[in-house]
């Protein structure tokens, strides 16, 4: 389509001959070189400072796969997962409440977000961890009767549960705003078309609005998850045996404080890198329908490169007419 075709007549005075390709002297960019060298010097100085410090890398190596550290990394991961599940689930509920025509629902949602977003997570975890001091017993019962179930708060609120409550309830406030932004971003015409087909409010939300809102919701949710991975370190205040607590526990005995902080950081960095890859694939999944062709996955890119290497005709030889030597740009959807 972009090729010239012989069909339209050439207007008088114009020409169809392709002029010689432009070969200009490239513009020099000396300041790019200067700034690059300066930045590398600063970086070198920083690396040198740490390399010549009394940091013992062998200690880092010794503890990086320590059984206690590995177990703590697992605790960090599942604390992140559970807190995010609580946060996303409750966040969707709060967002829908906030957009509800029911004023009371909208107001309660606003109040929740105002409170949990306005106080520090550390304080919230601390609160749940110490709730037994004001509520020694928790009970659920049928009002105005004596039928009820009672339990000691101390046994009910474990360190892990205190952390989950603190992190999850706080996250829900942020997720509610993210989900709300996603819902609002979906064109009003979508809701209208769905209503015109006789779909009810809940069905429209579930089948039409939320799937489209996901495209807006997913990227910030990925950020929230990565942020949560690191925020779980605050659970150490409730004595949850996650990475930060455990590395501190170890360094309390051997005094290798910085070495163990590095051990923990390496694990945080590794886990957040893995989450970044997940995020890429999930975003790609929810891009369906919003872009004409999905961006290829790294594996597809590799496969295409290898395949084309064989399928492409050698330079200089004419391709068989009518045969498409390249893969079409629209790749089959991956299994995600």
């Amino acid at each position, binding site marked *: 389509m972009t090729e010239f075709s012989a069909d339209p007549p050439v207007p008088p005075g114009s020409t169809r001959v392709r002029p010689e390709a432009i070969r200009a002297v490239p513009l020099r960019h000396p300041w790019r070189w200067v700034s690059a060298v300066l930045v590398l010097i600063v970086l070198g100085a920083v690396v040198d400072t740490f390399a010549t410090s009394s940091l013992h890398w062998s200690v880092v190596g010794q503890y990086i796969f320590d059984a206690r550290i590995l177990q703590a990394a697992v605790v960090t991961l599942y604390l992140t997962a559970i807190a995010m599940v609580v946060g996303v689930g409750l966040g969707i509920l709060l967002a829908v409440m906030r957009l509800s025509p029911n004023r009371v629902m909208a107001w309660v949602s606003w109040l929740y977000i105002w409170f949990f977003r306005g106080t520090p997570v550390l304080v919230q975890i601390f609160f749940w961890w110490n709730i037994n001091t004001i509520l020694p017993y928790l009970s659920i019962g049928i009002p105005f009767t004596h039928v009820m179930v009672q339990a000691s708060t101390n046994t009910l609120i474990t360190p892990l549960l205190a952390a989950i409550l603190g992190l999850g309830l706080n996250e829900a406030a942020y997720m509610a705003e993210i989900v709300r932004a996603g819902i609002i971003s979906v064109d009003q015409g979508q809701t209208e078309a769905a209503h015109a087909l006789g779909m009810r409010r809940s069905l429209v939300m579930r089948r039409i609005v939320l799937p*489209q809102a996901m495209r807006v919701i997913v990227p910030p949710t990925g950020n929230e998850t990565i942020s949560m991975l690191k925020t779980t370190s605050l659970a150490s205040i409730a004595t949850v045996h996650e990475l930060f607590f455990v590395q501190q526990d170890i360094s309390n005995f051997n005094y290798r404080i910085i070495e163990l902080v590095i051990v923990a950081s390496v694990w945080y960095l590794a886990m957040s890198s893995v989450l970044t890859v997940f995020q890429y694939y999930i975003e790609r999944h929810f891009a369906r329908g919003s872009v*004409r062709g999905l961006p290829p996955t790294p594996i597809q890119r590799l496969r295409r490169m290898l395949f084309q290497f064989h399928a492409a005709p050698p330079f200089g030889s004419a391709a068989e007419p009518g045969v498409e030597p390249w893969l079409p740009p629209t790749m089959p959807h991956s299994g995600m």
Partner: protein
Amino acid sequence: MATPMVRAEAVHKNFGRNEVLRGIDIEVAPREVMCIIGPSGSGKSTFLRCINHLEKIDAGRLWVDGELVGYREHGGRLHELPDREVCHKRSEIGMVFQGFNLFPHMTALENVIEAPIKVKKEAAAVATERGRALLDRVGLGDRLDAHPRQLSGGQQQRVAIARALAMQPKLMLFDEPTSALDPELVGDVLNVMRDLAHEGMTMIVVTHEMGFAREVGDSLVFMDSGVIVEAGNPRDVIGNPQEQRTKDFLSKVL
């Protein structure tokens, strides 16, 4: 005489202090094709949206197939219908929008079968069978798995028509179905609508396509600032308008 498919009596609608509809009276018989023309802001789209209760009317009465739209009359008072019943009535009325409003996260076929399966609780196989047939009928039998964004505007609008027809409606509302299309794509959509009219579908079409109105329409309504200025046989209204306002409008669009 048979019950009119749509009957409006002194329908009023205002958005805040802005009166959009100021007393609309019409009757659309079953199998009739009524075209509504008029300048933008004349209230024609709003009226269409009142018919399936996407908008609530503020005064007057509106019936579809002999039943009040959005209300039930009981003991001399109007009672709002519950959501469930409003939705059920909407499911019997097809609507096609100016901006298509296809669901972008679903394929053409999924767009068409969504409501039959989720609203009418049809078996997936049955809905899919009819969905395929409908898409074939609007000339898109080979694009079942395309997402809306991979289709041209004309193709999208034809999918939207198939989506509305999949609910087997007794009445079809078209809200400027060709206004957002490139001129060369308008014809395909109008052909689908013309076939539908010939098959006896009751249709109300808000349009700027005078050719279509004259050829396919059984009746024509010219609206301006919330009132019906002139109504009648399309050939008469277009060929020999009686009101000055109609003459002015037609001289600009013809």
